């Protein structure tokens, strides 16, 4: 009780500040009628806002005292022999549920999987190597436009363009990474942001090539082993998917197929990054993240290590981009703004930097929740920003913090090690 009393004056002060801060934005709404500006007042917002701040401030010391040691629950460690069957079951479920689900749900799940892919890619750069990249969306854009342009100008199909999209993004990552990776943490962040914006601005302004702000449309969807997924084949004499398998045409097939492809790409990304982190190069990334100077003094070349992480991360973004272009059927610079980079970064941070399970969960959460809570869509970004701040305050390590790969040797009976 004493604590609350001591806190009365600061809480009042906070409430006054809150009222003053809320008033010009929410309390007085600008209305324009012809040449005259007028104001609509909504004092109730101000009142409720400052009241809420007052109560929170008043009770904070009491709450803080109680909540010490109270965090989010830890995920229980599974016994090692369960991990494989469990993963297999999860995979089986992920691969089969769309056949029984609605079209919309599958569509959202596909989008979530694209973000899983991007999140895992950025996780290599930010989580493993500790390089804050705020221009990740630039590489995503390069991948998407590589496929779109190759298709538009040279008629390449998705499967022909996919490897090239990844390679192109990786090349961009390499070329951009080469000069910038000398910089320290936050400078690096700003330069990558600058590069991301430059790529977007170039896409907007190189109108002759990229179609400018309108982008490129009517990009074909991927084919299934050379079979087109459409009502009628686009070339004479060719068979479409449903004709070949003797099914009646159903546009849901395409949706399911895209989902399965996204799942495949996401799993490949997961598998590769999971292997990478156990390889010497992955160890080097982590070492560099922890202490660059120590790393250098042990004879590792920071430049090479950083560049490999940057390039690989960009490559994953390129694959994601090509798939995104194929799924949307249209690319334009609007899809590659900074907010997209921030969203992917939020996925990595929210999940727990470096933690692959965390990235997957966070990607699914951040794409599925806004779709479910459609009536709150106005508040979506507001809450998104708030969650980023609160996460950093309460749980900067993320929902599922990364667990170092380790092998525990059973102690066994005393002296067993010596006899073996």
């Amino acid at each position, binding site marked *: 009780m004493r604590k609350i009393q001591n806190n009365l004056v600061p809480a009042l002060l906070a409430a006054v500040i809150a009222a003053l*801060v809320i008033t010009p*934005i*929410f309390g007085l709404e600008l209305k324009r009628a012809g040449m*005259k500006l007028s104001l609509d007042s909504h004092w109730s917002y101000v009142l409720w806002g400052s009241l809420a701040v007052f109560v929170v401030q008043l009770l904070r010391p009491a709450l803080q005292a109680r909540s010490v040691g109270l965090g989010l629950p830890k995920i229980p460690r599974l016994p090692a022999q369960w991990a494989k069957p469990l993963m297999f079951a999860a995979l089986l479920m992920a691969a089969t549920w769309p056949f029984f689900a609605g079209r919309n749900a599958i569509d959202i799940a596909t989008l979530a999987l694209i973000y899983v892919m991007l999140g895992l890619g950025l996780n290599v750069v930010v989580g493993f190597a500790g390089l804050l990249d705020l221009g990740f969306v630039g590489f995503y854009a390069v991948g998407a436009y590589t496929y779109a342009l190759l298709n538009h100008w040279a008629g390449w199909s998705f499967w022909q363009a996919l490897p090239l999209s990844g390679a192109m993004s990786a090349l961009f990552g390499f070329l951009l990474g080469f000069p910038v990776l000398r910089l320290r943490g936050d400078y690096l962040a700003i330069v990558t942001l600058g590069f991301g*914006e430059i790529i977007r601005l170039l896409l907007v302004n190189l109108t002759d090539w990229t179609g400018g702000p309108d982008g490129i449309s009517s990009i074909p969807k991927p084919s299934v082993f050379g079979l087109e997924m459409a009502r009628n084949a686009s070339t004479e004499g060719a068979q479409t998917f449903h004709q070949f398998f003797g099914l009646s045409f159903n546009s849901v097939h395409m949706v399911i197929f895209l989902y399965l492809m996204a799942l495949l790409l996401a799993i490949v990304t997961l598998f590769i990054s999971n292997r990478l982190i156990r390889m010497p190069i992955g160890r080097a990334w982590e070492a560099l993240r922890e202490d660059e100077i120590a790393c250098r003094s042990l004879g590792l070349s920071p430049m090479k290590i950083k560049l490999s992480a940057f390039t690989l991360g960009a490559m994953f973004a390129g694959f994601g981009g090509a798939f995104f272009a194929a799924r949307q059927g249209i690319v334009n610079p609007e899809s590659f703004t900074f907010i997209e980079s921030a969203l992917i970064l939020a996925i990595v941070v929210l999940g727990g930097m470096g933690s692959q399970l965390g990235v997957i969960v966070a990607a699914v959460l951040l794409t599925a929740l806004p779709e479910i809570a459609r009536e709150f869509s106005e508040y979506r970004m507001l809450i998104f920003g*708030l969650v980023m701040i609160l996460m950093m305050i309460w749980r*900067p390590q993320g929902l599922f913090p990364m667990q170092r790969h380790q092998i525990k040797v059973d102690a066994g009976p005393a002296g067993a090690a010596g006899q073996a």
Partner: protein
Amino acid sequence: MNDFIPQLLQQLFNGLSLGAIYALIAIGYTMVYGIIGMINFAHGEIYMIGGYVGLVTLSAVGTQSGLPIWMVIGLMLVVAVFITGLYGYAVEQVAYKPLRGSPRLVPLISAIGMSIFLQNWVALGQGARDMAVPALLPGALRFGDEGGFEVFVPYTRILIIVVTVVLMIGLTLFIRHSRMGRASRACSQDMHMASLLGINTNQVISFTFVLGAMLAAVGGVLIALAVGKLNPFIGFIAGIKAFTAAVLGGIGSIPGAMLGGVILGVAETLAAAYISSEYKDIVAFGLLVLILLFRPSGLLGKPEVEKV
């Protein structure tokens, strides 16, 4: 060819007034960076909020209130500076203070969150679309001969330059001679030592945020008057450019921020005039990248030595 010189003068003037705005914002970045070594990503949004508060004040007073114009503008500036200063304080208390002493990336991510939050906060409260600002100071000075190219100097732009110069002189004197100014210089040299010598470092940090926000608010009000419109998303690009200006001048250095702002403003305007207006943002970002690559410590900054 006859028009070359007046045209150049016109562009230089435009660049100077734009650069003055960048300089006002850049000081907030550079002071915060100088003291706690973080990029206050939400600073651009503070500038945007300053513009909105000014506009709300203008509407509260009324455009046809009969008060002299200088008084209306003065009132807008005072209210905007006060409220936006509180925003600076609140942002620091909520998003950065609890994170003192955590790894570098943590406050940066929190700052990005704050930036997104504030953008949407204003978009929800005042609408996401462009808000027109009444022209309080219409008219301009014109130089040059009849028929030829006229140099066009709007009063609002003159106001920007005059106010900025006055504020810069005031700020320099304040930092140099006042008690708080000395304390903040001490903190930027060595925070730990300053606190051992009895300086209330928390107070200094809060003060830095408030001062930066106040200067940005002046920039926001002035640009709203000069350009004639506002929307909740102007802060992002302006913030990044002001950060570029701060880095260009040498981050942590106040005269550097002023110099950097002016150079960036002029470079951008010249690029828009002589290359293509679509490429002006690319020029600004390109400049940022080039400076960081070749001279990360900026024009007036001291090179940083990495210690183990």
